[in-house]
């Protein structure tokens, strides 16, 4: 084996608390990366994976300090360099691709100007050479119209393209080490694999060493040669990708494997529900849109039925109208045509015209628990308000019930006197659910409630949802982009695209081939835990996209 390009040894990163006591957030991490190889740093949020990757650039976030260890990049001791030297190193030898390309591009400059900025400013290349190199990179990254795409502005290309353009920006000065920090997390599932494939090709072709930071084990299996599993800043397991995914040793790695977003081996047909009884909720032939006269159509001819005790999954990518449908049912926006019925009774369009009892029966759980809970209200207030509002409880009765409710969602009862920012992400999502439960609803509309959570925590929330359904006979409308999750928990599925439901029915009907092209595309985008999956998936994807565009 040749000499590794990057050698990280015993890296410690610490933060200091108010009294000046150090606390290690990264503890004694060592690894090597060969040229042309990818190492994946995998772990949940707070595991130190981004901190390590930044440490390899000799950078720490404000308040953090590298307290021990060495980073050797091809003979250069990165941590010993002065700031001007480091800046030179960072633009030229080590480059970084951030999670959100949209936030990293300047909307007022053309893409070419931004991609070529660093080598031109540092004098490493003339503007002409840089532009030529950029065009070659666009071509390698399989961007459409590589000769002209650089003349556009960032808002004129899609999110997936922008993410690839960011990789072009990182690759233009021919770095020896490329750091990719969750580069596909913000993308739609069907776009993700294209981007992933082009990153993989670029790294192999240029013989670059890469560090890939992610929380998703199934993705990493596709691109990484080695995997380093992290928990609380410490190394849990380190090995080749085959070793880790075929024979994980550590319990934590096994838990990560179990929680990965994979399709179940078999999709079970749900028990047949009696259709004679009145459905809990019926959406009949609804068309709705935004704008003063609803002229921007977001939903077209939607029919959806939810029975009592049933989970209906609504799947689609961003912009498919799935969240709009949830908002319409809960009365946050009105329909242009069509109607919504609860227990056979037609519901008024807006919240203000519905009765309290109608409002009580349909509750909405928001995606981001950190913005869905008022940071200045204690949990007791957040949870007791729906009880007082809908059920007429007094404050002291409600406070007693809050304790029971917190127990029901597996939170300690003393949390009632805490503020939301004092809770972890998973705990906040439990509170978010508890608030919906406080109303004693019949139906909870769950809008992507697990997508902002780490995989293991998300799995716990899904388990909680199932337990609650068994105990209370709740119905869920589960809005998500994640077809793997939905196939595990739903009885009925509706697949949405461009504001229409393109496929609908029981979960086995919809997801068992032959299915609609778009459903197939979504299914095809769910990573499988084997290393050769990506290449097959990309080929399959092109066929499906061509077929969909043909329609």
């Amino acid at each position: 084996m040749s000499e590794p390009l990057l050698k990280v040894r015993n890296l410690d990163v610490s933060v200091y608390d108010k009294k000046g006591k150090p606390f290690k957030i990264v503890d004694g991490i060592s690894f090597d990366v060969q040229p042309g190889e990818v190492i994946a740093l995998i772990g949940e949020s707070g595991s130190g994976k981004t901190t390590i990757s930044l440490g390899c650039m000799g950078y720490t976030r404000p308040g953090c300090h590298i307290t021990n260890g060495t980073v050797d990049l091809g003979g250069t001791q990165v941590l010993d360099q002065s700031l001007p030297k480091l800046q030179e190193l960072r633009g030229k030898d080590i480059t970084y691709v951030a999670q959100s390309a949209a936030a990293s591009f300047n909307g007022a400059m053309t893409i070419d100007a931004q991609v070529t900025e660093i080598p031109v400013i540092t004098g490493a290349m003339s503007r002409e050479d840089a532009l030529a190199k950029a065009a070659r990179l666009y071509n390698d990254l399989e961007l459409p119209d590589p000769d002209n795409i650089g003349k556009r502005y960032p808002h004129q290309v899609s999110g997936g393209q922008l993410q690839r353009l960011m990789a072009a920006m990182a690759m233009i000065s021919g770095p020896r080490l490329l750091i990719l920090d969750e580069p596909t997390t913000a993308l739609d599932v069907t776009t993700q694999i294209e981007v992933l494939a082009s990153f993989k090709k670029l790294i192999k072709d240029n013989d670059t060493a890469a560090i890939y930071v992610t929380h998703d084990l199934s993705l990493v299996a596709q691109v990484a040669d080695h995997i380093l599993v992290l928990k609380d800043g410490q190394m849990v397991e380190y090995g080749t990708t085959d070793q880790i995914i075929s024979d994980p040793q550590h319990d934590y790695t096994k838990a990560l494997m179990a929680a990965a977003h994979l399709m179940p081996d078999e999709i079970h047909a749900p028990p047949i529900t009696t259709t004679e009884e009145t459905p809990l909720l019926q959406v009949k032939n609804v068309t709705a849109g935004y704008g003063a006269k609803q002229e921007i159509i977001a939903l077209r001819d939607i029919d959806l039925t939810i029975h009592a005790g049933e989970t209906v999954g609504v799947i689609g990518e961003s912009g498919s109208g799935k969240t709009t449908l949830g908002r319409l049912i809960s009365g946050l926006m009105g329909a242009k045509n069509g109607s919504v019925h609860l227990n056979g009774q037609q519901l008024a369009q807006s919240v203000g015209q519905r009765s309290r009892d109608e409002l009580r029966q349909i509750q909405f759980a928001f995606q981001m628990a950190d913005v869905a809970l008022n940071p200045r209200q204690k949990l007791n207030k957040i949870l007791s308000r729906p009880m007082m509002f809908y059920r007429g409880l007094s404050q002291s009765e409600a406070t007693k019930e809050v304790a029971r409710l917190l127990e029901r969602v597996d939170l300690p009862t003393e949390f009632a006197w805490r503020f939301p920012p004092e809770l972890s992400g998973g705990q906040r999502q439990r509170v978010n659910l508890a608030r919906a439960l406080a109303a004693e609803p019949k139906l909870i509309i769950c809008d992507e409630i697990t997508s902002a959570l780490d995989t293991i925590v998300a799995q716990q929330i899904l388990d909680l949802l199932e337990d609650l359904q068994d105990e209370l006979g709740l119905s869920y409308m589960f809005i998500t982009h994640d077809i793997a999750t939905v196939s595990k928990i739903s009885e009925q599925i509706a697949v949405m695209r461009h504001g229409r439901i393109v496929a609908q029915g029981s979960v086995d009907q919809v997801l068992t081939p032959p299915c609609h092209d778009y459903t197939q595309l979504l299914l095809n985008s769910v990573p499988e835990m084997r290393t050769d999956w990506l290449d097959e998936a990309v080929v399959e994807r092109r066929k499906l996209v061509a077929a969909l565009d043909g329609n």
Partner: protein
Amino acid sequence: MIVENRTWTGELREAVSDLTPGVALCVVFLITMFFVAMFAPWIAPYNEAAILTNESFSPPNAEMWLGSDYLGRDVLSRLIYGVRVTLSLSLIITLLSFFSGVGLGFLAAAFGGRTDMWMSRINDAMLSFPSLMLALIVINSLGSSFVVLVFTLAFIDMTRVFRVARALAVNIMVMDYVEAAVVRGEGKGWIVWHEVLPNTLTPLAAEFGIRFTYAILFISALSFLGLGVQPPQSDLGVMVKENMQALLYGEYTTLYPAFGIAFIAISMNVFVDWLLQRSNAKLPDEI
């Protein structure tokens, strides 16, 4: 993360321990000034209107620590009463402008749409008048009295407070937790009181400090121009004006009230800056 139960006294103790020496000095000065303003009749050595000597601008001496003014009155006593008038007028003006400005601003944000548009445009029209000119015109036509002064300045300040309060509330109104309250079926009043207000208190408190400083400066300027507080009552601005000639005789009499105004304004600003920095709250960009 485990956070101990937060109590009022605990937070205060923590805040005091966070004070830097400079800020602490300003806070002590402000507290002293408010104390002086509240207990002026008991603190002042003489009656503010009593003419004690025939000598104008006498230098400081054992009886009159800061000397006498142009009519031979005790400068220290007048200063103490002046602080009382300036601070109490400014406080009333700021309180009035806040109750009306925050109330209307939140109303505009909560209703949005056309209501917000009309309220904001009318407010913009008011803002486009230079404030000093507006004050001069109103006071000139109605005659200067405490009531006219207070309501005119409170109205002018209200337009500024309206903008800040509205901008803060608009940011809160789009948060998911407000939407959660809307889906629940809560009324506008409940949402404003329980969801918006608690999240805007810190920046509004800071804004209150800034507005209070402006009120002090504004009322002093008007008094200096002869349109504010009218003799025989006097505030700091009136004292600067009355004793201007002292400078011709090489005496400092007029500088005492001038420095009084300056130190109160500076201290308030330093304190507010510290408060803002500490809570990391930001005032919205468009002020």
